[in-house]
């Protein structure tokens, strides 16, 4: 942990009627990491692994605790606009981006919207596409502790599970509740998809890697195949014995796959 504490710094940037909170660490080409449904979980071992050869930006999306939601921001499309705004303001055009779950949906929407700001795209267990053969797990109707546990292939064996969720369970309030609230605001209905997204993704020409946990019980692996089909030239990498959160369960393996894909 002492390595990690030294490996990054906190930054805040006034932007789009709010103040963007982010962690930044490492050296090299800029790499934007977009978190998922419950929000920012701080600087992770996964970020450390990436920081070996990239400058890693880990922001909290507006509405997810660390960054307040500006009044105008209500949807995934708005989040995508917000991050393009950030890229342009920070002079980071040409960066790589990876998104997890809802963050993956934001990244996909960013690629549709303004690909010239991006170099390469990584979507990890991304929301946004409606599966045909099964359903995305209705996480907004289940007790949240069950959702967290179902997100892992093997929660008990995962050190990140114990570090993040092993303490006293906070049932109400806190930054994770703020995150879930923003996710509900954006993704409640239709639940976690945009029927137009696959059609729009046809215009994406960025090199794209889609990563899926073979045992993802939240967003079915079928959605990974649909993303690969929708984005011309995309490749799909499946991680075995892994659920919805490979950055928690398989941080080294995931970072390795991503670094190989991003290598020039």
């Amino acid at each position: 942990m002492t390595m990690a504490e030294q490996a990054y710094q906190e930054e805040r940037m006034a932007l789009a009627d709010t103040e963007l909170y982010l962690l930044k660490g490492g050296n090299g080409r800029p790499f934007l990491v977009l978190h998922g449904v419950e929000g920012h979980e701080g600087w992770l071992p996964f970020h450390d692994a990436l920081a070996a050869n990239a400058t890693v930006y880990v922001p909290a999306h507006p509405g997810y605790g660390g960054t307040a939601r500006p009044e105008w921001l209500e949807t995934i499309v708005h989040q995508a606009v917000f991050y393009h705004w950030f890229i342009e303001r920070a002079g980071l055009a040409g960066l790589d981006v990876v998104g997890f779950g809802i963050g993956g949906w934001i990244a996909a929407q960013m690629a549709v919207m303004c690909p010239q700001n991006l170099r390469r795209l990584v979507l990890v267990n991304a929301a946004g596409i409606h599966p045909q053969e099964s359903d995305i797990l209705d996480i907004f109707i289940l007790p949240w502790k069950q959702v967290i546990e179902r997100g892992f292939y093997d929660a008990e064996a995962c050190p990140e599970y114990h570090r993040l969720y092993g303490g006293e369970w906070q049932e109400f309030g806190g930054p994770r509740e703020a995150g879930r609230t923003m996710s509900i605001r954006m993704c409640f209905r239709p639940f976690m998809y945009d029927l137009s997204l696959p059609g729009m993704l046809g215009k994406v020409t960025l090199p794209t890697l889609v990563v899926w946990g073979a045992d993802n019980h939240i967003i079915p692996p079928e959605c990974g195949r649909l993303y690969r089909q929708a984005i011309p030239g995309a490749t799909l990498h499946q991680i075995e014995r892994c659920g919805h959160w490979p950055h928690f369960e398989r941080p080294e393996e995931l970072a390795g796959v991503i670094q190989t894909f991003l290598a020039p």
Partner: protein
Amino acid sequence: MATQYYYFTEQPYTGYDPAVQEEHPALRLTLPNSLYDSRLASELYNRYHDEYQVADEVGYDGIMINEHHTAPFCMQASINITGAVLAKITRRAKIIMLGNPLPVVDNPLRLAEELAMIDCISRGRLVSGVVRGGGVESLANNVNPAHNRERFEEAHDLIIAAWTRPGPFRWEGKHFQYRVVNPWALPLQKPHPPMMVPGTASPETVIWAAKHRYPYIVLGSFLEQTQELIQIYRETAEEVGYEMQPENIGYLIRCFVSDTEEHAQEQGKNFFWQNGALNKQPREWMAPPGYATVNVAGIRRLRAVSRAFDSLAYEEAQKNYQVVIGTPDQVIEKLRYVRDLLGVGHMCLWSQDGYMTHQDTVRSIELFGKEVLPALRDA
């Protein structure tokens, strides 16, 4: 205004064994409707309507009705359907809707039209209560919980405007938009039917009601907590510039009357017929993230209140006035105590639940009308 007395039942669907709660998160929302027998439901609806007629005939000032979705404890999936029935089968009693769950309605203009029709058909007997609905109603109707408060307020403003602003006019709101608001159904009561707001614990709702000068009805919370909520109303009223009166506040209390104490005691147990399962629901159903914008404390308190009732022993529930049961003389004394302690101008009597038979229910209504009501009106 003298205190008004209203008859209430949730119209429970009793054709299943509450013991199935062991296999489900709660007796609502996902409880399989394969347990629903339409023939029994048909009988029950008609039976409950017959009982409303008796309440009307024996002199209750009003009949309180409500609405829940995917909920076997309340068969009223549409409060306006019951309201329309009451408009035609009763003659005197006010139709007290507590209330329409505004946030889960996608077309509030149609709601304004339906309510106006009910007011006209009933010859001006509608009291149009509105509620936010518990979080689980947002799930049942698939309406974003994060928009609950905003939709409640906008739907309310739109309905009042539809009733009071000469049409046609446009409505360009955040959640609702209309090219033409110009309903050809307007309420008989002017400027519009009286409004009411029920609640159990949320100070946010009390404050909203007080600011609009709408009567606030506490739905059976413990007396001490009810007094706290009333105090919030009183203080808000003072801030807004008026003095709270008894007609601004009301209380819902469980009350069953019978000829003998023994029989009343036996029947009163029906108020616990679901063994507390009503409030056995995940936090994510009761208050999905976003449903309670600022009031996490209120949600905690609501659950504490609900659970506290569920865990009460029967005798204890009677001792602290959560349930009032007995012969007319016995309930008169207790109801007077509660009414005068709280200083409420509206008393809603929850007088039927669980497996109470039609015969027992009718007898309770008759005893209340013929013996209890006159005594309460006297003193």
